[in-house]
């Protein structure tokens, strides 16, 4: 089996393509531009870029992309470790911030387009409807992560404390999927796919932690 090994080695030898960071940012902005332009055009000009119900479509689309960016963020570390792509590490912050940004846009779509600042309804939603409470919590937990994403903040907190704080991303991912799962009427295939993906990403980390725990136990 020389060839796959060779292919794997080749893959591992990949270095950061030129302009990768910029391309990634541009790609990450595309869904947001599509949703904002589509919703604005559909609402003001009566086009059907997002379909017959642009408000709901924009809201769901932005929620979907929040979860996708969370998946992408959590894929960085495994990819980096398996493929030895250390150059990927710095993209984790970019993707994480995009996850937060899409979460905020999803929330904006809910507040401004969907319930249209009907505060009475928002209060009832948050207090009486668990999936909205859970979604709000998932978003809220991303706030401290976004605020401590700068190099300055990492230095201020110290690597260890910063790492511990940023474990919150797992809680956000879990709550995000629960929020999605509870919100659908019947067809849970999409939330299930997200749940399975996060499960694999979580399982990888548990495996890694056990490995390192075993290694340090052996050393002791």
């Amino acid at each position, binding site marked *: 089996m020389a060839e796959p090994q060779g292919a794997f080695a080749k893959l591992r030898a990949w270095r950061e393509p030129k302009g990768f960071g910029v391309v990634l940012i541009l790609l990450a902005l595309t869904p947001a531009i599509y949703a904002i332009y589509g919703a604005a055009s559909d609402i003001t000009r*009566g086009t059907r870029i997002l379909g*017959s119900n642009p408000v709901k479509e924009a809201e769901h689309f932005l929620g979907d992309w929040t979860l996708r960016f969370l998946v992408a963020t959590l894929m960085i570390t495994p990819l980096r470790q398996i493929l030895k792509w250390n150059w990927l590490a710095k993209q984790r912050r970019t993707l994480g911030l995009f996850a937060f940004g899409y979460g905020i846009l999803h929330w904006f779509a809910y507040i401004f387009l969907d319930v249209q600042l009907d505060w009475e309804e928002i209060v009832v939603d948050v207090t009486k409807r668990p*999936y909205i409470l859970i979604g709000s919590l998932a978003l809220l937990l991303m706030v401290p992560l976004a605020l401590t994403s700068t190099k300055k903040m990492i230095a201020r907190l110290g690597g260890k404390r910063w790492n511990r704080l940023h474990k919150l991303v797992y809680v956000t991912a879990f709550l995000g999927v629960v929020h999605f799962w509870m919100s659908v009427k*019947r067809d849970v295939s999409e939330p299930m796919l997200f749940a399975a993906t996060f499960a694999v990403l979580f399982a990888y980390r548990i495996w890694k932690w056990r490995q390192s725990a075993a290694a340090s136990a052996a050393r002791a």
Partner: protein
Amino acid sequence: MLISRPSDIKSSEITPESEYLNRRAWLAVAGGAAVALGALGRPASAQVPQAMGKPFGLQPDDKPTPFADVTGYNNFYEFGTDKSDPAANSKNFKTTPWTIEVDGLAAKKGKFQLEDFIKPSTVEDRIYRFRCVEAWSMVIPWRGIPLADVIKRAEPLPSAKFVQFTTLFDRKQMPGQDVGSIPWPYTEGLRLDEANHPLTLLATGLYGKTLPNQNGAPIRLVVPWKYGFKSIKSIVKMTFTEKMPKTAWNELAPNEYGFYSNVNPAVDHPRWSQAKERRIGEFLRRATLPFNGYGDQVASLYNGLDLRKNY
């Protein structure tokens, strides 16, 4: 298959001429208010025919939802759960020949060809409000016959108190039925007095055309004061029963979808408010009306019934 007999019924007999609203008059009534409400920039559809039928229970600012939305934004899980799935996946759905079975507590039971089932009745064009349980709504110009006509011909026995409807079960044609999301076939039901109410329609068309497949061809129920899922599509069977029949969504989630499912802004779905609705094609939400605006006609059916418990 266009179920109407243009040769022997003049359109003026179907809908009295005085009640016709031509497009111009219609817009004069509805246009101004809708624009003020912050309606989308979507122009009143060019497909709106000169006369769409007699309006029932419409509010002054109600105007028919464009044909593209009525036929492109559908809940019809037999063809997929996405709103655009039914239009995409029902293109080859075969609706001729079509047989409807009348069963249960009735004197005239049997299987009927759709044409024979419809023929004795007068086909009418009626514009109704339509409110989905998901808090969106439309205004739809239906074409169809009163369900009461069909029930009369079936001669239900005195013991019959309900009527249950069943959708076609055909996995080859309805790919959504491969997914176990609903205990197929889809069923719905009405109390006999609800079924006999003059507003209750068996629709065979919309916008003056044969019913598109994604809207429940060739024949579907339309109960305008109830949430949309009560208006079962592609009906193959009607069963008269003494006991309240099982209905699909109620079986799945009895705490979310009751047997009655009358449109009621005061009783929320557990996961969302029912106080307001988004009219497809408009941005600002509207207040949802009790019985979807048909309270004057139907509220008396529920005298003495606690509508909070019997949601």
